[in-house]
């Protein structure tokens, strides 16, 4: 079955629950098969499948919370606020990342709001282009750019906080 493993992985990252992830994948394939005639041959099949899964997730309880977050996010393509001051005040990223373990990345991802988590997964894990992400999430490319920027910044901030905490624990 095409994309089965990657769709399941993405679904689990979104839902954070095995049963919910399985339901999401089942629903995605059901909808894709029933609506296959609406898929335009020659367009991006992967983005189309991820969009179905993501839209299905958005109708769940967890998804509804995530959509509420997005509406407050304000990532409408406008340039985000400055961050250099914040970065310079924190541990330099390269030093920070040298101490980061895989488990910390996973925990940080789980802590991220869904709207940030999903875009990081599509961008970094699935290595989709911004255009493809826009298709999958149904948002303009300008919004993709600003949301990716904010999601990465939130990720770095979480990692910095966790790392700082670990140092203090020592």
């Amino acid at each position, binding site marked *: 079955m095409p994309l089965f*493993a990657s769709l*399941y992985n993405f679904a*689990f990252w979104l839902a954070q629950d095995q049963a919910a992830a399985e339901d999401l994948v089942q629903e995605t394939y059901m909808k894709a*098969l029933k609506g*296959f005639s609406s898929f335009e041959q020659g367009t991006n099949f992967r983005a189309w499948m991820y969009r179905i899964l993501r839209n299905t997730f958005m109708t769940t309880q967890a998804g509804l919370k995530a959509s509420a977050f997005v509406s407050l996010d304000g990532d409408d393509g406008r340039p985000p606020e400055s961050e*250099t001051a914040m970065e310079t005040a924190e541990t330099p990223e*390269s030093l920070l990342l040298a101490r980061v373990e895989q488990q910390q990345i996973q925990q940080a991802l789980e802590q991220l709001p869904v709207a940030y988590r999903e875009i990081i997964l599509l961008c970094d894990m699935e290595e989709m282009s911004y255009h493809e992400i826009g298709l999958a999430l149904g948002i303009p490319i300008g919004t993709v*750019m600003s949301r*990716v920027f904010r999601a*990465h910044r939130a990720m770095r901030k979480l990692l910095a906080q966790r790392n700082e905490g670990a140092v203090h624990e020592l």
Partner: protein
Amino acid sequence: MSCDVWRQWLDVYVDESSSAEETAAIEDHLRTCPSCTAATLARMQLKRLTRAAAAGRYVPSPEFRLRPELSQLMKKGVQKDREPLWKLPWVQAVAAAVVALLIVLVSISAWMRHSVRDQALAELLDLHVATTASANPVDVASADGHTVKPWFQGKLPFTFNLPEPGSSSFKLLGGKVVYFHHAPGAQLLYELRKHQFSVFIVQESTGSSPQAAGIATSRQKGFSIETWSETGLRYAVISDSNPSDVHDLSALLRTAAHQ
């Protein structure tokens, strides 16, 4: 442009979603800005770490089975959703055009065959009328087939059999060479109850056969006509007598041809 603005472009650059012009501009800045270069390297590092941590993190359990209805859809669904080839509009249009073309071709072919046959019969009919109207209807006048048949030797590129004299009520009057569609053929003249019968024998290869194959009867301008093919020759019997007489003479000639 300040570093604040450049930082907004670093993710786009690392994610390889910047245009060629944007990439060139960003790289120009990175060559002169150690801070932004360090930030870029950190983003690359984080991207790699994220991919390593997230990809394949969760795999479907062996117990995860597709629902029965989904499995059924997997087998049938896609095929069901796709239109059968013959339902596609362009296939229907092409099929309709092909059928229409075939109908036209068959019609033209049938009309041409019919037209050629009618023309050939009309030509033979004219020859028959001209013969019966002539003061010298035949070039060899004899009731004996053994006299008439040899007369055609050297005049025709083929030969034929005639019914034995006295085997029927039909009286042989004689024969002559005629030209039918630029090829020589035999015309025999018979008589029955004052009615005259022309028997035309031409080569099948003249291409002007009145009928493609088998025995065919018709009436034109009151004349009865019967035609058939026999051993590469085309026969036509024409008379103003009734069709049964024409058929009887035709049957005699067919019997003779097999002897």
